[in-house]
């Protein structure tokens, strides 16, 4: 990092030595923590006993409230939610599964589409750009409906009948917008590499393909990682949409649970419970993304 007066004070590296040897161990620890926090972009709070007290009080209040709401004669809401947890967990695992599958398919095709957008053959680049924008502009739910209704339930490949169950079609429907967004991520990352890289590669007699594969793309992976993870988060919260088109996942199972319990006071806790599940899965990913973004940020 260049050090001058324009560097904000908080970004200047800390002095290595200090005149106060007495403070050394603490100062070093604080400096390390400050460095970590700068990288992470948020204060890494040390847990204190009062935090545990606060969580405990909140939990007891919520439990008491929920218990009071349950009314006489019906089992407590917490027990009911606990009873359905294994089933909901299975549904949630299915959501994670199709999110991973759709991400894999979408990323693969997205990279190809993104590279096609960068092609020097104008018709190829134009077509790829059109496809990208088309799928980026279409709502996820509409694409899902499209795939569910218009893909056949089985296909014949070389005389072999391959069945296409609903969840496969839904996964394919989810991977279409992922593909389009991935294509834009690839294009953006490649174009963010300074032109000097291309020029110096060609002065070393690299062909265009060699430059792309050996010089440009390796530099792009770091830049593409944070937006790619962001996309994965968006896809994961998008997987619940498949319940709307009739594929059984966590929301469908929650609906079944609610149907068999048939209690109006259970609606809010169950939906909130699912929200918390998704939050616990996606929030760490989001934090990690922010961390990587700062780590790989280009220092101007």
């Amino acid at each position: 990092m260049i050090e001058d007066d324009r560097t904000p004070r908080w970004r200047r590296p800390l002095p290595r030595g200090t005149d106060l040897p007495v403070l050394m161990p603490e100062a070093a620890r604080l400096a390390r923590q400050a460095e970590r926090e700068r990288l992470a972009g948020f204060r890494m709070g040390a847990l204190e006993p009062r935090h545990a007290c606060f969580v405990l009080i909140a939990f007891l209040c919520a439990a008491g409230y929920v218990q009071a709401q349950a009314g006489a004669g019906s089992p407590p809401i917490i027990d009911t939610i606990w009873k359905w947890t294994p089933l909901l967990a299975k549904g949630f695992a299915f959501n994670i599964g199709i999110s991973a599958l759709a991400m894999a398919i979408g990323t693969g095709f997205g990279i190809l589409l993104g590279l096609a957008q960068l092609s020097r053959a104008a018709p190829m680049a134009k077509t790829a750009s059109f496809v990208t924008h088309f799928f980026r502009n279409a709502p996820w739910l509409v694409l899902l409906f499209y795939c569910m209704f218009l893909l056949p339930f089985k296909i014949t490949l070389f005389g072999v009948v391959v069945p296409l169950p609903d969840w496969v079609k839904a996964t394919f429907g989810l991977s279409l917008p992922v593909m389009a967004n991935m294509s834009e991520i690839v294009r953006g990352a490649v174009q963010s590499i300074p032109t000097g890289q291309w020029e110096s590669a060609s002065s070393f007699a690299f062909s265009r393909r060699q430059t792309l594969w050996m010089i440009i793309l390796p530099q792009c992976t770091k830049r593409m990682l944070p937006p790619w993870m962001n996309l994965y988060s968006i896809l994961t919260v998008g997987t619940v949409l498949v319940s709307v088109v009739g594929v059984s996942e966590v929301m469908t199972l929650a609906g079944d649970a609610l149907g068999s319990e048939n209690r109006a006071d259970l609606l809010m806790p169950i939906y909130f419970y699912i929200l918390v599940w998704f939050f616990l899965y996606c929030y760490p990913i989001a934090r990690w993304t922010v961390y990587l973004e700062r780590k790989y940020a280009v220092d101007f």
Partner: protein
Amino acid sequence: MNAFFESFRWLYDTTGINLTIFYDAFDRRRFIGGFVTTVQLAASCIVLSVVIGIAGAWLQGSRLRLTRRVVYWYIQFFRNTPPLVQLYFFYFGVGAYLKTAGGVPLVANVTWAILGLSMYAGAFNVEIFRSGIESVPKATVEAAESFGFSRLQAYRYIVLPLAFRVCLPALNNNLVNLVKTTSISYAIAVPEMLYVSAQIWSDSVNVKEMMNVLLICYVGLVGLFVFAMHRWERAMRVPGYGA
């Protein structure tokens, strides 16, 4: 006009492409109603989510740590959970408690859709506005102060116009996403474009045609919105700032 509509009946008779939304007055009215609802829904959500964004960004600059914490967790919670489940939570969960004695819901599903989607998009907007405000150098504010601007005046005439221009691309991106996300209010039976299309294709059994019409309408609508926002973005660009 009638001849134009009737030509689609001829199209159906000759090719089997059944576009009821053109030759059937009832379906046509339904579809136009759905399109208008989608546009109204999107417009209301855009306005409300921008208001939430500005208010949230202002609250995040608060001196009270509790306020900042609350805004932070609001953003994180709404960003990292499925908007569809949020909508269910509001409509079925919270809505279950907001009923008259006769069981009539006090808040209509359209209202819940607007509230839920705006809260969702608003969470993103808060972050966007805050990053815009933070990107205005402190020296600019100091320069304004040295010209005798008051704090509020500096905010109103210097910081906000600059911040707005800086965050416009990110804001546009989010608003475009919001317009697309309005389609999930299908799940709580808001009669928007997707919902009426589903009604039409189950009445007239023309799934394939309606799916294509729907896709074209959405891509067209969002494309138009993207185009307009891009034009605006370019007109508002700060010369010499960014690429």
